[in-house]
């Protein structure tokens, strides 16, 4: 089964300020964007489940003109705090890349 990364040109996570993380999932073409979005694999519910975040705390943007799905969630620990694991928030996107796309 194909995986998400095969349809994308960029998948990244990053701090959006010290208190939030944001994910940008940018697709190569319209066909891949439509296929993945319609599969529900990276729906609001699916990402909330994957990252164990309440949907009310999440911001989810479908940006068809940029062939992009953008998701912002609160951080578990604030950037650089005693229990933080990733100061820049740049490595939280890993689990998205290999999601199977039906």
């Amino acid at each position, binding site marked *: 089964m194909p995986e998400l990364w095969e349809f994308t040109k960029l998948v990244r996570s990053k701090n959006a300020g*010290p*208190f939030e993380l944001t994910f940008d999932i940018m697709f190569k073409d319209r066909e891949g964007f439509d296929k993945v979005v319609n599969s529900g694999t990276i729906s609001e519910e699916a990402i909330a489940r994957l990252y164990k975040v309440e949907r009310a705390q999440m911001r989810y943007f479908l940006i068809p003109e940029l062939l992009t799905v953008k998701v912002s969630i609160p951080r578990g620990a604030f950037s650089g*705090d005693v229990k933080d*694991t990733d100061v820049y928030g740049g490595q939280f996107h890993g689990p998205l890349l290999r999601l199977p796309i039906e």
Partner: protein
Amino acid sequence: MKKKIKAVAATGNLSTGFREDTLVRAVEGADFLGCDAGSTDSGPYYLGSGRARGPRAATKRNLRLMLREALKAGIPMIVGSAGHAGGRPHLAWTVEIVRELATENGWHFTLASIDSEVEREVVLEAFRRGEISPLRPAPQLTEQTIRTAERFVAMMGIEPIQAALRKGAQVIIAGRCSDVAIYAALPVLEGIPACVAFHAGKILECGAASAEQRQYPDCMVAELEQGGFKVEPPNPAFRCTPQSVAAHALYETADPYHLVESGGALDTTQAEYSRVNDRAVWVTGSRFIPAAKHTVRMEGATLAGYRSVVVAGIRDPLVLRQLDPFLATLRTVVEQKIADSLGLAPDAYTLQFRIYGRDGVMGAFEPAPRVEGHEVGLVIDVVADTQELAADILPLVWHTGLHHPVAEHQGLISNFAFPFSPPGMNAGPVYRFCVNHVWELKDPCEPFRTKIEAI
């Protein structure tokens, strides 16, 4: 009022730099040169400790070229968020470099330095008057947390920069400052609509990052007019496309369409990005919604303790297959040892086992917290009230762990491969961001103190 304003961003961050020839080309015919020097992105250490994020030599090189070109062209140079965190020591660090450069090169100009550090007492009074309110998510702010914080800064909007420009400042070094305000201040002063100026500022603040493939950090140029702006990289090797410029609005922002600034919010929902030529993009259609009240964002950092760490590799499959119970029993044993030898209860320090090869990177967000490889990198992380305490606790943990038994090995074993001698390191103070709040102001210049001097 000028018809067009040509704005130059030297680079996305003052310490990362740009190509000299690009800057020279970019400044030709420009109305001002700006650069952002800071961020909260590297964590709370810089704000908390008062240390600037260098390297100093690179910052000095970049400031030298920027000053040289700006002075030659007779245009203002504006640096925001000096020294990374934009507090008083960070501002002083940057101004010192500017003075050095002026002396070394025989340059003379009017310098404005804008201090954005806010005294604890001032924050406390504003808090008591109910002028400080939380954003989401925010740490809880109390009088106690304000009293114990190391440092507060307020993030200035365009107004303090405009005030300095009106007073004839040629070089402006600003403490903590909205990235966008660096680039919006002068155009708005010259009559460019706020929607154009703020949107252009948002694109410019990361330097060449809005280009299609930014091979290295470099300058970016925007030409602002009444109805929109053109963005075009001055480096001929780079190009902007409608897609690359529009996509830049996503970077590091939680909401790609709404950017909240000190005096209002930029709404780019209806923005249009169109091709001027192979390398340039015309942007129009965003809106600026003025806020009913002026607010500035507050940042603050508080000391959370002192850290000592050790890196320990584990390659034994019998240990790895029972890593969780191994570390759980180790924790129980060392907590007792620490209590016995140092008289410290477990709540008097933080002991973390960071397990690379399991969930060291993502922590609680990791959907597959399992060891699947043949080795694990364990970072034992101790944070205590003093560096001495952290340094005392750490060897009790790693030495106990080194020989902590597993049932399958009968006899003394050594579980950890330490790459360094001594195994442990003192990592110094640990800070935490203690504010994510906005401060409501009557006068948007109120918390900022500007010093104007002839250099």
